[in-house]
């Protein structure tokens, strides 16, 4: 048990850091070094459990009276723990570069370790009480981090919506665990695991888990808070919320659907794959039309959560039908994407934080040319942008490749509805992959390339060393994760076998140790290392040959631009203009995009105006409509507050009569 005690000590360090930071302002600067220490210890314990496969359990006499708090660290928790503590570590190292006087505030720093500890506690919980308690702690501490800049009305709106959605999510999870516990009320996970749920109960639990975990992860239509709340927090917290907290939501779903709920039925797969695919495509359509750097990243988080849910759904479908190996491919895709997304999304959010720090802006149309003013950040961000666009040989493509391989196993499925759904899902995944590339070319092209559009962008400077180290390490992981996909998959193999019943062919069954093999090596192989080697050799050969045979002189001159270069950087393509073709093609369908051009009357030298209107149907149907209904109802009921005493007496009498008659009828 010493490993679990080490985790406990690390959690205590986090709590202590939070406490110290609340007490004295001087302790604020201790928060991040202590968080680094704690994340290293927690991560090491998680890695140990993941690699050895031991299961650590313990129970503490705190929490509910007579029951206490049960803790358990198995390989699933440990895997997510590695993801979380990696993210915490990167965010903490990044934060070492924050300015003590200017950036550290008692509104943010004490809550950061609390948030990190809460996420770790969710993974450790081994009963419903502990799970829900730490889940709420996680929600509340992240909410408090979102509301840290409460003077900004946008932040206030975001945090309000977040709070409402978090309450809805936790309520749903409460129902999920209620259904799992059954009439006997066994709230410990062991008791729940011991009996399989009835189909009707399973449907209820699954729906509740999707609502609970989906709302935290940003599954459409429960996503609306996420693109508001994640960017509103300070950037290193945004990195944690987007890169890591959404993974806790995935953990919750995996724990319930793959572990607690018992053997799956095939129809469990439909809600996650359908919602996940819709989320993936719509999330990117939102992202590609948005002009705020951090909000684009948040929308892209929604997309990636959608991809993970698709993979999990496919794993459920294959497992329910007894195709263990296909289930293993899908589950490996999901878990690897969890890991990969935590890396590149943290990297991108930290990069956005660096841009915000250096320029004070996060509107894409106010940036530009940062590749020259912030060269290091620009390189790291480029790696992240290419990785998230699922381009080989980076890590995003590894999970994408596995996901397509599992889609390809779809024709084996016997159920007609799944056979219809899976190719449609495949088409949507392909669309999402292409849109992701467009989205991140747009982000990188407008923010980092071209000429600076504002003075702030032109005067930007690269960020402190600690922040560069954090981003550089994540960028390196994105590259290594791409090349070493096969070894990573084999590390996950025992975990995948536990929850899918099958495993990928062992590492080494392919042509090289780096070959990722989906089913067998005659069927599907992807070898990132060999491809990268080929591309590297081809580039080097090209470089050498071209430099030998060609004219090597290079002259700098004004841009050609078809003979009419304009010195004003305003004439560049902006994020909005880049999105225009996409808006015309997809926006007219998804958001009823309309463009109206108002020309001044002839002879008038005033400016013409282009107005774009978009309709967010999801917001209208799922948020504005119910919200409006509640308000209208409240106004009606408001009348009840202003009655005369006689009327109140009549009402009370009527209520009494009704209750008595009900009692008479039922007994």
């Amino acid at each position: 048990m010493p490993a679990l005690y080490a985790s406990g000590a690390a959690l205590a360090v986090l709590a202590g850091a939070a406490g110290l930071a609340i007490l004295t302002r001087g302790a604020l600067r201790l928060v991040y070094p202590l968080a680094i220490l704690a994340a290293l210890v927690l991560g090491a314990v998680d890695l140990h459990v993941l690699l050895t496969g031991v299961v650590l359990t313990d129970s503490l006499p705190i929490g509910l009276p007579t029951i206490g708090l049960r803790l358990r660290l198995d390989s699933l928790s440990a895997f997510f723990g590695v993801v979380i503590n990696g993210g915490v570590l990167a965010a903490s190292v990044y934060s070492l570069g924050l300015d003590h006087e200017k950036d550290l505030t008692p509104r943010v720093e004490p809550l950061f370790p609390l948030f990190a500890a809460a996420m770790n506690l969710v993974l450790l919980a081994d009963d419903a009480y502990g799970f829900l308690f730490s889940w709420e702690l996680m929600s509340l501490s992240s909410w408090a981090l979102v509301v840290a800049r409460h003077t900004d009305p946008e932040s206030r709106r975001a945090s309000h919506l977040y709070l409402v959605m978090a309450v809805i999510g936790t309520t749903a999870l409460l129902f999920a665990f209620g259904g799992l516990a059954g009439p006997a009320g066994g709230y410990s996970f062991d008791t729940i695991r011991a009996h399989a749920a009835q189909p009707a109960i399973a449907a209820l639990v699954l729906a509740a888990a999707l609502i609970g975990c989906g709302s935290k992860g940003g599954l459409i239509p429960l996503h609306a808070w996420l693109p508001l709340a994640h960017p509103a927090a300070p950037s290193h917290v945004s990195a944690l919320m987007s890169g890591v907290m959404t993974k806790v939501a995935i953990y919750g779903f995996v724990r319930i659907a793959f572990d607690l709920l018992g053997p799956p039925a095939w129809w469990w797969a439909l809600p996650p794959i359908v919602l996940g695919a819709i989320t993936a495509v719509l999330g990117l359509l939102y992202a590609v039309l948005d002009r705020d750097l951090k909000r684009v990243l948040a929308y892209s988080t929604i997309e990636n959560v959608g991809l993970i849910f698709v993979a999990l759904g496919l794993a459920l479908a294959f497992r329910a039908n007894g195709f263990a190996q296909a289930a293993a491919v899908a589950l490996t895709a999901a878990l690897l994407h969890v890991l990969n997304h935590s890396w590149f999304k943290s990297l991108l959010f930290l990069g956005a934080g660096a841009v915000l720090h250096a320029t004070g802006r996060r509107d894409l149309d106010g940036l530009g040319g940062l590749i020259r003013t912030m060269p290091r950040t620009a390189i790291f961000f480029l790696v992240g942008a290419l990785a998230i666009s699922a381009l080989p040989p980076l890590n995003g493509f590894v999970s994408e490749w596995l996901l397509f391989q599992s889609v390809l196993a779809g024709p084996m499925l016997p159920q007609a509805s799944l056979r219809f759904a899976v190719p449609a899902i495949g088409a949507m995944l392909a669309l999402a992959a292409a849109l992701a590339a467009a989205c991140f070319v747009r982000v990188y092209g407008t923010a980092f390339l071209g000429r600076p559009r504002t003075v702030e962008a032109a005067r930007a400077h690269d960020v402190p060393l600690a922040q560069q180290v954090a981003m550089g390490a994540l960028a390196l992981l994105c590259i290594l994760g791409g090349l070493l996909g096969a070894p990573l998959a084999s590390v996950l193999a025992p975990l995948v076998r536990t929850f899918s019943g099958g495993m990928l062919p062992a590492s080494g069954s392919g042509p090289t140790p780096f070959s990722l093999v989906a089913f067998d090596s005659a069927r599907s192989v992807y070898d990132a290392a060999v491809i990268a080697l080929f591309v590297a050799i081809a580039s080097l050969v090209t470089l050498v040959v071209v430099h030998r045979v060609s004219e090597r002189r290079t002259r700098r001159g004004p841009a050609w631009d078809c003979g009419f270069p304009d010195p004003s950087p305003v004439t560049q393509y902006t994020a909005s203009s880049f999105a225009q073709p996409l808006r015309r093609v997809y926006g007219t369908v998804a958001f009823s995009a309309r463009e109206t051009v108002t020309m001044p009357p002839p002879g008038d030298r005033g400016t013409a105006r282009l107005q774009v209107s978009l309709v967010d149907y999801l917001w209208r149907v799922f948020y504005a409509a119910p919200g409006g209904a509640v308000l209208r109802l409240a106004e009606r009921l408001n009348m009840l507050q202003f009655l005369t005493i006689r009327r109140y007496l009549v009402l009370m009498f009527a209520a009494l009569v009704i209750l008595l008659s009900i009692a008479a009828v039922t007994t």
Partner: protein
Amino acid sequence: MTRDLIVQFLAQGAQMFLVLLLAPLAVGVTRRVKARLTRRQGAPLIQGYLDIAKLLRKESVLAESASWLFRTAPYLIFALTWVAAALVPSFASGLMFNWAADVVALVALLGAARALLALAGMDVGTSFGGIGSSREMMIATLAEPAMMLIVLTLAIAAGTTRLAGVADHFIAEPLAVRVSLALSLGALVIVALAENARIPVDNPVTHLELTMVHEAMVLEYSGRHLALIEAASMLKLTLYLSLLICLFAPFGMAPASAGLVGWTVGLVAWTAKLLLGAALLGVWEVSIAKMRVFRLPDFVGVAFVFAFIAILLAYLSGGDIG
């Protein structure tokens, strides 16, 4: 054993240089056919080689606002396209490194080259670069999913995602008329036209500002950088022609275990089919007009719908379509 390995290695190397060698010729054939059909004399068949040689001799003029990405991108784009082109089976299916990238990875490799090119288009910060990049990515969001669905359909038919395996499957089993394969062929032709910036999606010879896509993106390039970009787009054309050949007309291609004789037959057959494909492209291009940019979604959308119906049929028949 060692000798066998060396021969295999050489064959793989030969494939890599073969595509590079033949790519400008294929473009030359297309241009020549177009010229003759419009009653012009036309440039010599080797004009593609001459163009690249000329560009290599010129100095490179870089815009003042160009960053390192602008200078690095051509090398990477060329290398990525070259590797992708070399991975498509041409004269033989069972080459040494054919397993390294399957169809999904091939689509993604081309996607990587395209993303780099679009980024390079944005780098100088001119309006033309932006217009080209933005339109290219818009077309890609339609063409790439269609392409992915096509290759997935064929992979289901062949039971493998390895390109060589798919080719072997279609060599062994003569192509019967199947609805989903016919739809895939139609879709792949449309995707190939879109991806190679050919008429009616884009016009490779125009510099009429408002209609160009690919040319607008590479407008700022000159000298050796432009030579690499041009060579990469020639390679890409060869790649798509090879892909069409290898999937839908693989006859003559040497199977995995073939020796020198098989390879020679395969080489002759592939070269002939490649040049025939290039000539057909020329005929197609003179017989149709370029479309407006915002008509393109309809055109490329047809490919997506075809590909989707094809994969749906493949799924409903339980994968048993080939």
